[in-house]
């Protein structure tokens, strides 16, 4: 598996907008917990990894900008999805 490239903000917003079939322009900066679950699921699929977010990670994510920061950092060290199964 190749290492996941750094996520762009626009990609992240597009993924969030797909929840509920919204226009990316209507995505808010504040991120809800369901949107975060959606994001993690989508990124896990896209990069075939397991994103183990710690408590500390989650506590830092309140906005799209926070999510971009944290998820990019977690993606670089994420284990492949089939590891340990």
């Amino acid at each position, binding site marked *: 598996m190749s290492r996941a490239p750094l996520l762009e903000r626009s990609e992240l917003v597009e993924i969030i907008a797909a929840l*509920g079939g919204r226009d990316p322009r*209507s995505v*808010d900066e504040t991120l*809800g*917990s*369901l949107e975060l*679950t959606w994001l993690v*699921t989508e990124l896990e*699929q896209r990069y075939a990894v397991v994103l183990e977010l710690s408590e500390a990670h989650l506590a830092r994510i309140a906005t799209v900008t926070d999510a971009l920061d944290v998820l990019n950092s977690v993606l670089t060290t994420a284990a492949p999805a089939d590891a340990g199964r």
Partner: protein
Amino acid sequence: MTSLLSSSAQTGPQQGAWVDRVLLSGGEDDPCLRFGRPCDRGTLRAQVAERQRQLADAGLAAGGTVALCLPPSPGYVATLLAAWRLGGQVSLLDHRLAEAEVRRALDRLAPQVLVQGTKAPGGAALRGYADVEPVATALRRGRPAETGHALIQLSSGSTGPSKVIGRTAADLEAELGRYALLPRFPRRGERIVLLASMVHVLGLVGGLLHALHAGVELVLPERLTAAGILDAVSWDQRPTTVIGVPFYAELLSGVAQPPGLPHFARMIVAGELVRPGVPAAFAARYGVPLGTMYGMTELGVIATDLTGELHPAVEPTAGLCLEVRDGELHILMPASPYLGATDPARWSDGWLHTRDAARAQDGGRVVILGRNDSQVSIGGLKVDLTEVEHTLGSLPGVAESVIVFEDGVITAYAALADATSAEAVRRRLGQELASYKQPRHLRVLPALPRTATGKLLRDPAGLRKAAEAAGG
């Protein structure tokens, strides 16, 4: 109303023999729960006995009261059953409530014992369960039960404080009977993967209690992502039903290449309306139906479509009588489910007024169209906008406020006193309300727009325009 509550008290659990008969019977080795590790009935019974000692030590006895504020966990299940087995009246508080909300609930309910766990981990949004140690504390000002209800739940009221809803053991047993009569609901030897909260009626009765009653293994996924849920489905060869809120159906429908899941029987969702297109997308992705259920805290499961073939209609469950009057769904219910004074707009003359708009169909089916009042659903959790508006309006420095719900999110519009910052208001609101109830946006205006007759404008488009004009 007093006489009706008294009559329900007569059928209430003076002692908890019903727990063994209805929920805990079965072979020692029968699989029953899986929070990471499998737990059989013998182990569960031992855990319940241990929690019973803990509660008795804290002073709980038959006719006593206890409030549970625990995340989904083995400790929650054992403590709930233990409290009922002791003949206690159990109030369930969502562990996500803000501290101030828990305090208000305890003031109102006055339980004799409070059971809390170590703080739920911050990763709760992505975890299916927690591992906490329940701690029981005696509360000095607690009062014994005044009614025979086994279960007390709080539900958002459209005006004033939460409604207090009581259910007797007989009522819970009747609901379990309705589940048992649903031909496609999981039965003995099958599994339920539960994604819904075990504090609220769907996950509590349709998930936990039904599983214990019917001999179904209840599985809580370790992770609530699509991969985590599908993993939990794939573990085992027994027919498996996933129960949750519609968000998870959407989440699973988005999986591009799901693994082969030959034992996946169906998914059943409830708690809010399913978006058009989701049932078809789900069925196309997994080759199994997306069923829907309609229920209320007051009564439990009311009507279902477990095949996905009736969508958006649902069929009443056995023994329930539904009627659509003036566009609102009413359900025959001999006694008021509310403790204290009953609002006649919610229950009168033997009928529960659901406040859900509905359309009747031939053959007794109904189509639920949405709420008639200010209650909305955020990820399946009920939020009353009036409660949010009242809380915001009561904060120091908030001159006036309006809450609206648009595109699935709660937005607050407020005019603040000069010295008050939006940040300070947000912070205070965070202390007063659970995170799922908090407005996603707080838009500050110099003054809120009003209608020609001087009332606060509540139209979302008008408010948005005013906020844009004010640069908010």
